[in-house]
């Protein structure tokens, strides 16, 4: 169960002067949901396109399902599913017509096409929209159709590029439940996202910035290994407090969350709360409490090292 389905070595892709993906080493095991977490333009889509064989790497190696990419792209097409970031099924076809098209293109035996489509319509809650043109579907319904069409041939390996960027939290929840059902059926997935809550659901993730991997591991590992302590400050005049702390040594970052200020302090400081109290001695009525790190803290700390 620990077979490697995707691995890359020094994977790099440049567009002219710009390096979109920078010396990426990845190892993705079977049965996992592997997340790429990073802001827009950090190279998530470019990486996925290289893993699916759509883009040729500028340098480095890619192995997918034991085969070298992009040379083996064609024979692997029927084992891979790729849900693009932008809706890429036909807006001027109905839900059923799109699914039928996908079924025929993927060579699903003629006699099982109808059954498979019914099953997918049911699983992905599309039964009331079968004859609706896809252009008139809501964002969430479109994503469901995309997922249904992407898994129609039961791929072993699924790539989902920002699958829930345009849907409401409720739909996102059900969507993820469906992803775990697919994993349960034996699929491996690579999901890109810029949402922390979504990244937190992955078995493992890589934090990307400017095309380079800044950290990777399971969300728990990443939080446990965070090289910083988290202190939350409550009280009045938080904006002034924030300006007081910004740029001070060992203060990695400050961010206001509602009525609290979340401060990351470098792990090398043995007494983070005491240190902050000393810095803020001119303020009164402040409560400082140490907190468990969350994924956002990991992300902030991993991506700020670049600037430092």
């Amino acid at each position, binding site marked *: 169960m620990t077979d490697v389905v995707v691995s890359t070595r020094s994977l790099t892709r440049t567009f002219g002067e710009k390096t979109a993906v920078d010396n990426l080493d990845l190892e993705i095991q079977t049965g996992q949901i592997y997340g790429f977490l990073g802001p827009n333009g950090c190279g998530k889509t470019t990486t996925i396109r290289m893993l699916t064989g759509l883009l040729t790497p500028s340098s480095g190696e890619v192995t997918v399902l034991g085969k070298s990419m992009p040379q083996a792209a064609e024979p692997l097409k029927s084992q891979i599913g790729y849900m693009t970031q932008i809706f*890429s099924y036909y807006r001027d076809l109905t839900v059923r017509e799109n699914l039928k098209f996908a079924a025929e293109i993927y060579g699903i035996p003629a006699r099982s096409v109808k059954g498979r489509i019914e099953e997918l319509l049911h699983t992905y809650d599309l039964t009331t929209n079968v004859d609706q043109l896809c252009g008139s579907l809501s964002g969430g319904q479109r994503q469901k159709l995309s997922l249904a069409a992407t898994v129609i041939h039961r791929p072993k390996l699924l790539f989902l590029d920002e699958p829930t960027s345009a849907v409401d939290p409720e739909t996102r929840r059900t969507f993820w439940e469906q992803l775990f059902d697919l994993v349960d059926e034996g699929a491996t997935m690579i999901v890109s996202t810029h949402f922390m809550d979504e990244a937190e659901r992955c078995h493992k993730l890589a934090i990307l910035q400017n095309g380079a991997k800044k950290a990777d591991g399971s969300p728990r590992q990443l939080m446990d290994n965070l090289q910083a302590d988290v202190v939350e400050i409550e009280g009045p005049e938080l904006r002034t407090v924030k300006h007081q702390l910004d740029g001070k040594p060992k203060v990695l970052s400050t961010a206001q969350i509602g009525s609290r200020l979340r401060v990351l302090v470098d792990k090398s400081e043995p007494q983070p709360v005491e240190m902050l109290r000393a810095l803020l001695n001119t303020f009164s009525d402040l409560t400082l409490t140490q907190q468990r790190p969350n994924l956002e803290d990991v992300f902030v700390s991993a991506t700020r090292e670049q600037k430092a």
Partner: protein
Amino acid sequence: MISPRRIAAVLKKELLQLRRDRMTFAMVIMIPLIQLMLFGYAINTNLRHVPVALVDQAETELSRTLAQIVQATQVVEFTEVFATPQEAEIAITEARVRAALIIPRDVDNRFARSPAIGLGLPNATDQTSSRPVAHWIVDGSDTMVASAIKSLRAMPLTEMMRLPPNRLVPTFEVTLYFNPEQRSAVNIVPGLVGVILTMTMILFTSAAIVRERERGNMEMLINTPVKSSEIMIGKIIPYIFAGLIQVAIILGLGHVLFDVPINGGLGALLVVTLLFIIASLSVGLVVSTLAKNQLQSMQMTVFILLPSILMSGFMFPFDGMPQPVQVIAQALPATHFMDMIRGVVLRDASLFEMREQILWMIGFTVFGLMAATLKFKKRLD
């Protein structure tokens, strides 16, 4: 290795989209209809009723009769009458008339000596007596108008004397085959098939593929096991039928409205048009691999369309073109098609008689399809 099922899937999808795309659907029907009306009715190289002025300085019975028989040719129509040639010149400059007929004071005298009346008198040998009967001044900027009026130059005047027609024997006897009445529609309508197919076939196929790229469908499509050749075959089949419908509209209506004969066999007609349709579609496929969006594919279509209209022999005779232009024209499928369709429709030429053109067309298509398939990569870079 090519899967008929996947081709059928692409084809079916294309038909569904075409059915919902009212605009393209309307273009398949409307382009041939409108072009046929335009070229059939509006563009007429047999000029009639050109507005001209009359300056009758003689005002004799003879001069009036002369004006009458000139008008009776129907080539010109006297819309204005002036007293002096100067006024007529102004009218020409102001484009109120295209020409003016100036009948000189001594017209009776000139007329009596003119060979055009065919009295069989010995021809005048000295300058003064061999002068023409009257004088045309013509706005020569439109060569078509000018040559229509030039054609009146040697008009026989025998009618004026109620005499039998000129017994002079012409140098050449000319027998007109295939279009004895010299109607331009007979030549234009079959050629129009070539122009419209060039335009619509290239545009439709290239747009059909570029559209997938533009709307983001291509990234999904190239991630499926479908092969480039399957995409291309599935995409061009609907347009083959669209092309045949257009040919039927043009030739059918051309026959009904403009009495354009269809002398050749329908079998030969089908072979020739199918060949040209597929050749044009393969050009469309090549365009689709080069164009990044539908605007670019439109521009490239126009780039091929213009020489196909101007150099293929559709508007101007191929034989009159300079050598380098002929070489370029030979590379256009439309040039070969003009020859073939006029051959089949007007001259009942057989496929065997056109074998060289047919082979050329097949070669062109194979080359185009290969180029497009090789150039079409299932890649984004």
